């Protein structure tokens, strides 16, 4: 442990004196501690991790980068997993955490053992860890800002996510802030679509008869296609629906675009954010200066990039982007 500390100090000193020479990370081992793998987003996340870290191991950037997923999404199980990783002697641990607070004890132990801890998506609040957070608030606001560039104003329908989850509150708060700054828009109805197409379709169909003409629908991802179906079934004109990068949403958008030049945008979080966390960990081991808190850029699909994104996405999947070391460096210097 002491020798590791000394190496760390040495590396830091080296970088301070000569910024061109960097510590070698080819003997470093980075582990992924993941709390859950039960949906398509997490599966895509693990696949991206395997792909990017596999290449990094093959070309000798790092020695090893295995992924470990706990079986039951339990805090105590993940804490024990992290402790075992400390004993295994990994140089860095990348975490998608089951709880923002309850893993702090184990995370602190890892830091004390000289291990770099990078959390992403499900972040941890322990100060010694690095956090790659998603700015859901900004994601909601971006939607309204986009609408302001397209429409002169009008009535909006808001589709929210799963009630009681903080992500839902954050995105919705961002949308409402955007509306407050663009008073030409007014939210006339709000339903919970639970980030699922079928739930969103039912909820929108239920509220539509009570609403005036809707000029746009603001969403949280996973609900845009269902909303479009509900409008079509009710025989109402299709408004501008903001999409959420799901395959079925992009496919519908493409069909509309080809048929009548339909224009919108799509925004969500790429599951490849795990690979960003990997490179951030690698950069820290490399002795680079990285801020403790980083914000992930969300993945926006525009009218021009729709075809490429659609082609690159598996049916039933989510549009993804995997980060390279250069991308990660751009995020770090930009953040």
């Amino acid at each position, binding site marked *: 442990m002491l020798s590791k500390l000394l190496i760390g100090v040495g590396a830091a000193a080296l970088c301070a004196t000569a910024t061109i020479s960097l510590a070698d990370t080819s003997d470093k081992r980075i582990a992924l501690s993941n709390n859950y793998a039960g949906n398509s987003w997490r599966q895509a996340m693990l696949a991206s991790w395997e792909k990017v870290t596999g290449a990094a191991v093959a070309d000798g950037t790092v020695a090893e980068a295995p992924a*470990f997923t706990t079986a039951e999404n339990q805090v105590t199980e993940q804490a024990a997993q992290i402790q*075992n990783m400390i004993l295994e002697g990994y140089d860095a641990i990348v975490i998608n955490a089951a709880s923002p*607070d*309850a893993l702090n004890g184990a995370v602190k132990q890892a830091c004390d053992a000289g291990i770099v801890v990078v959390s992403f998506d499900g972040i941890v609040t322990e100060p010694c860890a690095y956090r790659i957070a998603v700015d859901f608030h900004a994601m909601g606001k971006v939607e309204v800002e986009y609408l302001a560039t397209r429409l002169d104003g009008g009535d909006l329908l808001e589709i929210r996510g799963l009630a009681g989850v903080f992500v839902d509150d954050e995105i919705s708060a961002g949308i409402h802030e955007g509306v407050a700054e663009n008073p030409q828009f007014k939210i006339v109805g709000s339903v919970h679509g639970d980030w699922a197409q079928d739930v969103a379709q039912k909820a929108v169909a239920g509220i539509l008869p009570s609403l005036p003409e809707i000029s746009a629908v603001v969403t949280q991802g996973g609900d845009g296609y269902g909303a479009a179906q509900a409008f079509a079934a009710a025989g109402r004109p299709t408004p501008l629906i903001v999409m959420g990068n799901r395959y079925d949403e992009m496919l519908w958008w493409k069909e509309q675009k080809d048929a009548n030049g339909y224009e919108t945008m799509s925004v969500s979080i790429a599951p490849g954010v795990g690979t960003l966390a990997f490179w951030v960990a690698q950069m820290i081991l490399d002795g680079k200066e990285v801020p403790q808190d980083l914000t992930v850029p969300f993945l926006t699909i525009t009218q021009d990039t729709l075809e490429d994104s659609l082609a690159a996405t598996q049916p039933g999947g989510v549009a993804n982007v995997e980060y390279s070391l250069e991308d990660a460096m751009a995020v770090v210097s930009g953040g």
Partner: protein
Amino acid sequence: MVDRLTSPRFLRAVLPAASFAILLIAIFYLKPRTMSYFGLNLMLQYTVPIALATIAQMFIITVNDLDLSIGPFVGLTACIGATWLADTPLLGILALAGCVAAYAALGALIHWRNLPSIVVTLGMSFVWLGIAVLILPTPGGTAPGWVKWLMGVKTPVVPFPIVATVVIGLVVHLLLMRSSYGAVLRGAGGNPRAIGRAGWSLLKTKMVMFGAAGFFGVLSGLSLIGLTSAADAHIADRYTLYAIAGVILGGGEFVGGRVSPIGAVIGAMTLTLTGSFLTFLKISPDWQIGAQGGILIIVLALRALINRREGLV
């Protein structure tokens, strides 16, 4: 001498310790760096709350009942500990005392209406979880400073988790196995009719044992947040099964009265080590629960073999 060493009684007593030792040696062999103060401390840290929950379960099993709610109950006490106990200590202590009293009352209810404990405690597990979610809707809170300090104590030479578990095992052993009322408590599980005829109140023994289980559940919850520093209503859901498995691994039996506090503590440590052992073997976590079950079955099969020999003698 050889006869004594191969007697079923001796073998049965030694089996928990032997399985623990074999597992520990295997881990030392796989990862020599665990053979240190730091390594043992890290590996065994989470045994303290599990050992306390196992002791709680053992009290219930002693009186021939089974507690399916100990996991959510530990989660509830953890939530109380990380919120009320930290902010308004008096309210926190009252709430925790109320939890213990509720457990004793459950024991009374089960005895009074002659209800199956499995059904009652299964129902109560949802009640505990519900209250925990009400107290702490989203994960968070902070553990009181003294709890964190206690769980972070660096004892000289021997790591704190080992000291703590040994103390827990010995104290409970003295109270339950060596005291005269302890014999009555165990008898109430093994042969309730005899104890009842001898003039002891079976209602009281049930209440004492359930109350003691509640008390150790509270200790388990507090020691857990001392380690994690924050709570979550679901923090200890798995403890229900860990606790039952720990008691059984440690030589306890479902027939009531046949338990071993020291064995139960060793059982809890064995279970924790199993997780580390399987991780060090690089077995995917998807298989780990199954592999843990496999180790459990091997130990139980060995015990069945010993018992059969006892039957032959």
